[in-house]
């Protein structure tokens, strides 16, 4: 007989593992990958592939040669970072810029803090913001999505350069126009509009989000409070002056709010622990996003808002403790 094993209680485990959580996130990202390919063609797939492969490669290189620790690639977290980074990029971005983004995301955003679990900021967003500031032109020109039929017809993807609804709106407001050319609600919901790979289709994001909710990888607190705050704040501004501000439905459907609220802000490592802490975090993200969108120099503020709130997480964790028994 084998030696008897001893450990403290409990002697059984739920079967949860870091690996399972990361692969769940990867699975939840698949609908968005598919919509991205549908709307932007195989360019989108290349951006995703390059991003994922370079994230894995950089993590392996850093662990092998700089940290000299056993590699942890199999936990799937590098793939999550790679996919999320790609989803925040335009599909026509030169691939060498994608590789730089991956290096910054993994190298600076994650490994410099000690790897998975220790990074205070969402690595994919660190990568994206770095690229946004370093390569503003490439990062803000989006190809207009083709119709679904075009892909199957095999027509050449003539890169029609267009702006996202947010950028177009900002330009229009600046120039004093009162007639905004916003996509229809159905287009905005399904994703038939300009934008980064992953952020266009609210439907795909919601499908992924529901999967994550069912698998208990995320809870409803951050997405609901984030989107809810953006909606309410946007609605107030719109009611005050519909000429200056976008209507709230477009506010939450365009740009990265859906993607940010469901996949970026809910990143376990960089979000608060307690339920109320998560609600506060979500509200903060929502407020900052709208503020940056309307009064900042960038048309989109989700990345900045989430990164700023990431910095507040230790404080939120201190201030919003979970409710204790009999308290």
């Amino acid at each position, binding site marked *: 007989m084998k*030696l*008897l*094993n*001893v*450990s*403290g209680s409990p002697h059984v485990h739920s079967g949860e593992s870091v690996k399972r959580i990361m692969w769940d996130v990867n699975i939840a990202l698949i609908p968005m990958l598919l919509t991205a390919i549908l709307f932007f063609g195989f360019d989108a797939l290349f951006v995703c592939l390059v991003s994922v492969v370079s994230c894995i490669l950089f993590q392996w290189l850093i662990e092998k040669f700089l940290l000299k620790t056993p590699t942890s690639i199999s936990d799937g977290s590098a793939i999550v970072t790679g996919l999320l980074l790609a989803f925040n990029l335009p599909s026509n971005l030169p691939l060498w810029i994608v590789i730089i983004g991956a290096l910054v995301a993994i190298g600076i955003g994650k490994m410099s803090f000690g790897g998975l679990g220790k990074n205070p900021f969402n690595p994919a967003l660190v990568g994206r913001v770095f690229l946004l500031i370093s390569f503003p032109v490439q990062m803000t020109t989006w190809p207009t999505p083709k119709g679904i039929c075009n892909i199957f017809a095999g027509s050449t993807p003539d890169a029609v350069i267009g702006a996202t609804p947010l950028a177009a709106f900002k330009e229009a407001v600046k120039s004093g126009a009162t007639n905004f050319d916003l996509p229809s609600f159905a287009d905005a919901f399904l994703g038939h509009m300009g934008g980064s790979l992953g952020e266009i289709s609210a439907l795909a994001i919601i499908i992924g989000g529901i999967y994550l909710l069912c698998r208990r990888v995320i809870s409803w607190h951050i997405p609901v409070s984030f989107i809810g705050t953006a909606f309410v704040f946007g609605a107030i501004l719109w009611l005050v002056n519909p000429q200056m501000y976008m209507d709230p439905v477009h506010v939450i459907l365009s740009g990265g709010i859906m993607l940010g609220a469901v996949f970026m802000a809910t990143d376990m490592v960089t979000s608060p622990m307690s339920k109320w802490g998560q609600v506060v975090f979500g509200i903060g993200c929502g407020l900052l996003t709208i503020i940056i969108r309307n009064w900042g120099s960038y048309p989109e503020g989700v990345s900045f808002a989430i990164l700023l709130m990431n910095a507040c997480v230790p404080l939120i964790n201190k201030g919003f403790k979970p409710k204790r028994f009999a308290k």
Partner: protein
Amino acid sequence: MSNFIVSAIVILGAVGLIFAVVLYFVAQKFKVIEDPKIDEIAEVLPGANCGGCGKAGCRALAEAFVKQGDMEGLRCPAGGDAVAEKVAAILGIEASKAEPQVAVIRCAAGCAKNPPKSSFQGMKSCAFANSVYVGTNGCAYGCLGLGDCYNVCQFGAIALDPETGYPTIDEEKCVGCGACAKACPRMVIELRNKGPKNRRMYVSCVNKEKGAAAKKTCTNACIGCGKCAKTCPFEAITVENNVAYIDYTKCKLCRKCESECPTGAIVSVNFPPRKPAAEAPAKSAEQPAPAAAPKQDESTVINNENTTNNA
């Protein structure tokens, strides 16, 4: 353009000047007057913050030295006499000498004679394991082999056997701060005088079980038979709770007890081999100078281990 540069220089210069003045007055106002001796002493202390002196860290000890003005009851065990002299010089007093000490692990559980009887999973902490069960080798008194001592050692003097997890002490690196002895939940580690030419004798067992039970637990156990106590010409050995203990202040290192011990629980370190056909490589024993060549660290450890196993 030049106007622009001039105004920039002037404004920045003015701002800098104002801040400098404000900072100067604030620094004066909140100046902490501290005895410069504290800094000086803290400088000569090892700076490992091992806690061997009983204070929170090296600076706390330096403060205590200066506050007290003498060295009565205060000592840096890690630094030893060399540091004590430097501190005394700073304080302007005579240094008191103390015998250098070294940590000794009074358990031979890592040896091949005592194979593991169970396995352990969970928090790698001896203190925790001690609250859960008896230990992988089945001894309720001996080393648990999870490295609490290794974790607290600030001087890299403890090495863990990669297979069994049992510690060995590198006596060249050990400064006798006693942090490991405090960390050990079973009080297996003891500080003992280094002894003349680094030669020491001790009972390598703390098992308080009665003879037969102890022997069943571990072949190397002290069974409390008292043969050693009877043999000892200097009354250095006492048997209490079924365990013999050699008082290092009385022991004259005659090694008579070692050959009497039926289980080999008494260990002698750094002695030359008894017979020409030496069982233990006696490299370091032949040249037991404390200021050792760099290579000697390793051989000392090996020697120490072998003595334990072959004794």
